[in-house]
Every structure is written in C-alpha cells, then in structure tokens.
C-alpha cells in the first residue's frame, strides 16, 4: 500500500525572467514501510521532491497524497497541523535551535500537541533513548558533536511518531563514523519501528543502506526499482515512471 502518491506532478520555478521546469508529469509511489534513497546531481529535483511531499512547497500541477491526505490542496495552517502529526524532517545541517537544550529541541514538535508536560517529558526521553542520547538531555547543541546533533535532530523528527521521515543529506556534514551511526539508526527506525523513510543523499555508501534507490536527473526519473541498490538501468520516460518501492 502506497503511503506517498505523486500523480502527474509538474513543478516549475521562476528565476528572474526565466521559468525553470523541475518536473513535468512526474508520477511515483512510495510504499508504507519503504526506505528509499533519492540520488542525483545538484539541481535534479531531489530536495524539491521532499519539499513537495512535506507540503513545504506546492506543485505547479498534479497531486501529492500522503497517508490519504491531499497535501497539494491544503491551506498553510492545515499543512502545519498535518506536518506536525505526519512528517519528521531531518536536515543536513541539523538545524537545532541553539538556545534550547537537546530535550527542549526534541520536545518542540510535542508543544503543538495536547500532551501535558509529564507526557511530553516521557516521550522526549524515549526519543532521545532511541537515538542513544539519554545522557545528553540538558546539553545545548554547542556542547554536542556533529553526530550527536544529528541524532538529536532525528529524535526531534520521530518524537511525534510520524508515519513518514524525510531526510535531506543527513550525513552530508558528518564524518564516516557518525554517518554510519546515523544510517544504522535509520535502518532501525525502518525495520524495528516500521517508519517510511525518504532520504536525499549524494553519498552512494549512504544510499546502500536504503532498500531502494531512485535516481533523478533534470527532474526525470532515470532509474529505480525495488531492491536495486546500484547500477544504472535505461531511462524511464517521465510519463511512464510509476515506481513502486
């Protein structure tokens, strides 16, 4: 069953006087429980795809449906509420709030729920426990290593128990050891906690941790199939590209 359904999506940007087409008629599904790596050169539309799925950006035409909700038709307020419940987002540069402790950073999405302080504290502790940072609750981001910061960011992404986790270059600023820790964590979240994961990455090693890999180039899906982790297959025409991962 597809958790994410992208149907005939076109997306174009205005750059000064010019219109830049990112996608034209992109159709693709991501199954519930899948773990997909999105690869491709800069400007190929990987991050834009994450933004469309998260409702941070709207398609020029077509529909994006996540867990049965038509993301493209929601208002900004509906999207914010929906995102708080459905999406966990992890950025390349962690993007923790520097004035908040690890615990407060992780608690941030829970402030938007009806949970009381005690429940929020419990869930925050669990999330930080999952990423192995139970002993860093009161540490500020500046007191953590890059790998630890990214794990706090992952804890923030999972604390509200979202169905879908979106990662944009999560290992882009990490050393090899920290990258491995983060990727192992993502594997656990996918396999043990059954989270659906979409991960944009430039790193083939990171992509190897995913169950499937999609290659985008100039907005065209040129490769992808279940279980394929490397190698290239013939270009798939954008109209026909319907990939079930």
């Amino acid at each position, binding site marked *: 069953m597809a958790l994410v359904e992208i149907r005939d999506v076109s997306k174009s940007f205005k750059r000064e006087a010019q219109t830049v087409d990112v996608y034209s008629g992109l159709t693709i599904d991501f199954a519930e429980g899948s773990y997909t790596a999105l690869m491709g050169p800069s400007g190929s539309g990987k991050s834009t795809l994450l933004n469309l799925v998260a409702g941070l950006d709207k398609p020029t035409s077509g529909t994006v449906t996540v867990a049965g909700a038509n993301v493209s038709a929601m208002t900004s307020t509906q999207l*914010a509420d929906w995102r708080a419940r459905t999406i966990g987002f992890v950025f390349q540069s962690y993007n923790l709030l520097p004035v908040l402790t690890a615990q407060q950073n992780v608690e*941030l999405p829970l402030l938007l729920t009806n949970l009381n302080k005690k429940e929020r504290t419990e869930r925050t502790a669990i999330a930080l426990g999952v990423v192995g940072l139970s002993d860093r609750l009161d540490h500020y981001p500046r007191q953590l290593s890059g790998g630890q910061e990214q794990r706090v960011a992952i804890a923030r992404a999972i604390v509200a128990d979202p169905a879908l986790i979106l990662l944009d270059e999560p290992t882009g600023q990490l050393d090899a050891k920290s990258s491995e820790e983060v990727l192992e964590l993502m594997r656990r979240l996918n396999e043990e906690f059954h989270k659906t994961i979409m991960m944009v990455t430039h790193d083939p090693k990171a992509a190897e941790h995913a169950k499937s890999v999609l290659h985008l180039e100039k907005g065209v899906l040129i490769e992808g199939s279940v279980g394929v982790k490397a190698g290239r297959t013939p270009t798939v025409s954008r109209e026909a590209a319907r990939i079930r991962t």
Partner: protein
Amino acid sequence: MKFLPLVLANLSRHKLRTILTIMSTALALFLFAMLRSVVTTLNAGSEVSSAQRLITQNSTAFVIPLPMAYANRLASVPHVKEVTWANWFGGKYGDGKKFFAQFAVDPETYLKMYPEYELPEDQKQAFLKERSAALIGEGLVRMFGWKVGDNVTMQGTIFPGDWTFTIRGIYHPSQKAYGDDQFMFHYDYLYERDPARVTPGWYILKIDDPSAAAVVAKTIDEQFKNSTAPTKTGTEKQFAAGFAGMWGNVKLLMSTIGMAVVFAILLVTANAMMMNQRERTSEVAVMKTVGFTDGRVFSLVIIEAAIIALTGAVIGLGLATALPLMTSMGDGGFLPGFRVTPDTLAVGAGVALILTVASGIFPAWQAAKLPVVQALRRVE
C-alpha cells in the same frame, strides 16, 4: 504557557541586547511618565481650586499691585461675602538656592478664606496675635528643619533689607496641590516698613453662589475699568490656569520631548526585534517545518516584543511612581503635589502596548510569512 520557555530562551539568546532594549524602553517610559506628570501636576492646581473663590488682579500685569481702597469696594459688590488680599514678598533665605514662596497676607481673613490650610488652634492664635509671626508649611520643616519658635531672617529682594520672622504655626494642606512649602506672614509687618510702596498684590473674594461668578467678575472689572488700576477678575480656577498657562510652551515642549523619546525608543526596539528575527530565519523555517503555523510564529514574536515592552514599562513606570514617594519631589522641593497619576500610568501602559505592536508587528509578520523552502535553501 507551554511556549513560554521557548520565548524566554529566545529572549536570552543575546542577554545584553535584550537587557539594553528593556532598559531603553524603561527609560523612555520613565521620562514619558515624569514629563507628563509635570504637565498634569501643573494642571491639577487649577482643577482643585474652589469654585466659590474669585481672584482680582491688576489687568495690566500680575506683578502690578492694586490700591488698598479696593478692599471695601470689592466687599460691597453683590454676592461677595468675604475679601482678603496677599502680596508676593520674594525674599531669599540663606544662599537662596532653595526656592519657596513667601506671601504677606491679611492673616485672619486669609485663613478664613483658605480652610485648606490646616493647623492646630493654638498655633493659629499665636500666628494671628504676633505681627512678626510666620506660618509655614510642613515641607519647609523638612527642607530647613525649622520648628515653632524659631526666628528666621530673610533678605528682601523686592522689599530690601533683613526681615526677621518668628515661626508660630505649621500648616498641613488638606489637598497636596495647595502646596506645603509656603511661608506666610502679616501684611501689616510688610506695610509698616514701607507704607509708600506696599499695597495688595491681588485680592481674593468669596462669593455665595458659584453660578454668579461671571456676573460678579464683570461687575468688578466694569467698576474699575477707567481707574488708574483696572482689574481682571476670574475664578480661582482661571487664576491657577493662568499660572499654568504661563508654562504653556514648556508644557508643549515637555509633551513633544516625551513623544520624541518614545518614538526614538520605538525605533530602537523595532530594530532590535528585527535583528533578532533576521538572525533566526533558519530557526523559524525549521519551526514551520516541524508544524508551527504562521499564526503561532506570529504570536511568539509578538509575545517576545510584549515581554520586552511590558518589562520596560513596569520598570520605567514603577520607578516614576516610586521616585516622588521616596524623595521630596512631590513635597515642594521640585513641584508641589508632584506625583504620577493613575491616568498617566494608564497612558504609559497604552504606550507600552503601542510599542509592543509597533515594534513586534513587522518582524512578526516577516517571520509568519517566511517562505520556508527559500529560507531552508539559504541555510542548506
């Protein structure tokens, strides 16, 4: 309330900047309250005046005296029940650096005219009996440490020479606006030293019907219209307002300075708020990604601005309220009856509210309308 730690954490991001912004807001509201209080205190003098009292002065200028013979003629005007007079002495005590008003008055009629000056009966009788006796306000006791029985020598400026008085009474004003820093002595004491020059500076009349004040004033002024000393008669309120009116430009200046200060601080606060927001572009984008709505982000920024403005207001207005109470500012050392009124506090709170909205609304709107994708792209 659950967002309060987030707001406070943001405020503590640049502690020094936040403290300085709060202090500038506090200073602005302190100055605003003090300057406005000077104006309201000056106006208050005319507002507590009795509607039953009229003042007759020389129409040419307040400083030109009136003939003594007017006393009987004024007393015969219909509705006039009592007449008394006073004269400005203008003496200097010690080095003259501490100013206080001295009046030569007709003691019996004057105290009858002004029941607002309250003093023990024995002191009153002692004051009435002795020609060189003086009646002083409590403020002068605090200012100079004088007590009943003390001899006080002043140097006359309008009426030259040394003038020695014996303090026989200390009054307490029933209303602060009447001032507790006045020095009153017998008109006769002044007159006997310089009978050629001394005549009443102004007359005070009590009428039986306040609604007849305009008619009485007109009758009096018509009566002396063609004399060598034409008069200008008005209610005590008009007289006090005339005094306050002499401050007209000063009041305008004070109000203008007050508003200019508030406006300048508004720009400082707004600038600080916008700097804060600019530095937090990526964080706002992240908060929106996490699920914060535009409205929520807007509210959080406005609450930050409100905390700065309201903390500044509490400090500034609190200090302005406490200062006259803790010092002698309101006792005559600065301005008799000077105090920050609830009305000024309410206006100050309103100014703080305007500061909040004006300084917070633009950065809040910017944060609320921040395009997340572009903001994240800048960061990533």
